[in-house]
């Protein structure tokens, strides 16, 4: 299948600039970067995409087997890079995508030349001597939350998300539902994300890395940011004055400034 179509790839910004790939995390899609793109567009070629199972990706490309592991999502990243023949791209990943970027950079080192990890967490569940912030029971609760927000989705959103090229009037509706995801696929992504343990993968990082954490993040507490920073030799840690798990939305200026600074230092 055409990867560009499959992952709903969008390319924008300066066609002659260095490439920045912006990768969304669990819960939404490439629209999450709405406030980031304008800050980077002048000097960078920006690649946006939706993971299979999210946003407006091709639903038929989804398989529980592939997307039941973070490697499956990392293959999406590598395949998008290959489809556009990207080299030395800067991969900016939010939340679980930060870890997916680590796996992708390891799998295709010629494609990814630097990492920006926005609110990363290599493991969400507490472990011996490690505080991820959650218990296994908490994760079950999240899966229940997904389930209880299921009913509204399936009737109203399914036809929109499934793509209706013959019905342009659905476009407006889509505008209001861009983060809607097939609950079955969201469930797989949630399980894969929150039950993952990628702590050992951090040691594989060989590229310049910026770790962005928030002062007050429910999902990735500061211990986790410090853990990631410690595990990746030579990485830079920036703590953003921001509440919540999405600093690119809640504190876009500070987030964009940190990313821009990092990009400038790479040149």
């Amino acid at each position, binding site marked *: 299948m055409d990867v560009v179509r499959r992952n709903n790839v969008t390319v924008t910004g300066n066609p002659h600039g260095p490439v920045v790939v912006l990768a969304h995390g669990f819960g939404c899609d490439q629209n999450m970067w709405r406030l980031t793109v304008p800050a980077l567009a002048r000097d960078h070629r920006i690649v946006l995409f939706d993971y299979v199972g999210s946003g407006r990706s091709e639903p038929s490309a989804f398989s529980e087997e592939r997307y039941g592991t973070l490697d499956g999502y990392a293959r999406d990243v590598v395949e998008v890079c290959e489809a556009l023949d990207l080299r030395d791209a800067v991969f900016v990943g939010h939340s679980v995508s930060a870890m997916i970027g680590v796996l992708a950079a390891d799998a295709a080192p010629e494609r990814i030349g630097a990492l920006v990890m926005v609110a990363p967490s290599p493991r969400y569940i507490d472990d011996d001597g490690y505080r991820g912030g959650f218990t296994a029971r908490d994760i079950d609760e999240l899966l229940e*939350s997904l389930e*209880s927000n299921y009913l509204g989705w399936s009737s109203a959103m399914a036809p929109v998300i499934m793509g209706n090229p013959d019905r342009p009037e659905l476009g407006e509706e889509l505008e209001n539902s861009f983060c809607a995801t097939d609950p079955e696929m969201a469930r797989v992504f949630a399980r894969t994300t929150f039950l993952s343990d990628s702590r050992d993968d951090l040691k594989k990082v060989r590229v310049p890395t910026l770790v962005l954490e928030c002062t007050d993040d429910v999902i990735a507490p500061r211990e986790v940011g410090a853990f990631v920073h410690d595990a990746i030799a030579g990485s830079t840690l920036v703590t953003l004055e921001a509440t919540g798990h999405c600093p690119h939305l*809640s504190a876009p200026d500070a987030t964009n400034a940190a990313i821009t600074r990092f990009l400038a230092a790479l040149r």
Partner: protein
Amino acid sequence: MMCRIGQQPEPQDAGGGRTSDAVFAALLEDSAEELYEFAPCGYLSTLMDGTIAKINRTLLDWLGLEREAVVGRMRFTDLLTVGGKLYHETHFAPLLRMRGEISGIALEIKQADGGRIPVLASSAVKHGSTGEPLLIRTTLFDARDRRAYEAELLRGRKAAEEARKRAEADRARLQEALAVLQQSLLPDSLPTVPGVEAAAYYHTASPDRLGGDFYDVFPVDGKRFAFFLGDVCGKGPEAAALTSLTRYTLRAAALHDPDPVAALTTLNKVLHERYAGSGDPRYCTAVFGTIEPDAATGEAAIHLASGGHPPVLVLRADGTAGYLPTPGGLLVGVLPDARFATAGTTLAPGDTLLLYTDGLTEARVGEDRTSLYGDDGLLRFATGHAGRSPHALIRALTGLLDGFGDGLDDDTALLALGVPTSSSLSSATRSH
């Protein structure tokens, strides 16, 4: 119940009388402040970072918390269960940031005593005069009843999904059993008949239903082979039972007396005896015949009888074809004494005898699938293939059947017997 602040009911009728005046007076006592505090839903205003700035009494009561412990001290997410917090961070907050409002999201709030209340949350961002976001207003509705109902729906949905999966598995098992049974009604392969080439094909119209067509070829003595092909009335298990009875009766009868009329007469007696008094009269049509190859001449003599079955076709080596008429033969099993029509021919090298069931001639063809393929259509097709070997003929007919698509809605059996032109060994196989 609507949940709005500061709206006052408008008097509908100035002359409404004393009672309604009193009602309105009472309503006017319901100040905006009172309405806010004791509304039948929870109200919450937070700063953009989620810090709670204002909360109504109703929500405090649900939470079991005092205002002092909440305002300026807790964030909206602190009121939620952990699963709700995760959902808030990954879905609710990003959407609210980008759209400025979000509605009807199912969350659960934690009560001080450890209980939980499912709520439906809606939020809207209030913007300042220059468009900067100032605060978030959130309304929470008690959704205990609704969520219980939704849980029922989800349970129902899951049960239906499981039932569907079970039904599919059952159906697959049944189809497998039917396929095995169907195979038992037909020969695995055709026997080798010296000096004769034989080929057959069976088309099943529906994998769910046992078909009622049958055929067979088998040796009866040192010189002759018997063959038959027919069609029982109906479909499904009853038809399959009838097919089975018919097949084994004809085989046994032919061993006793291979004369075609004798074999069909025996079958007629057996079917009539079995079904006439059963209240479920059943019958079949069949062609039964013998083929006797003559090694000296290289020809094969055909003797056959028909009980109500469409006439067989003879395709000659010279490129002609024609029906071998068997008029007046009665359906087998209907009457205690039935008459059957006989016919005979000799197959020279390159000649082929074709037996078929009416699924072929009654296939619906044409743009709108209203006309039948018919005897004439079949004769034209056969003429076009006259001189071909039985295997080549059956292959061509299989292609014809495939081309009918959904115009072919009945089972169809085909049996071709021919004398090869060369001295090449005859083969006996059945195509599927």
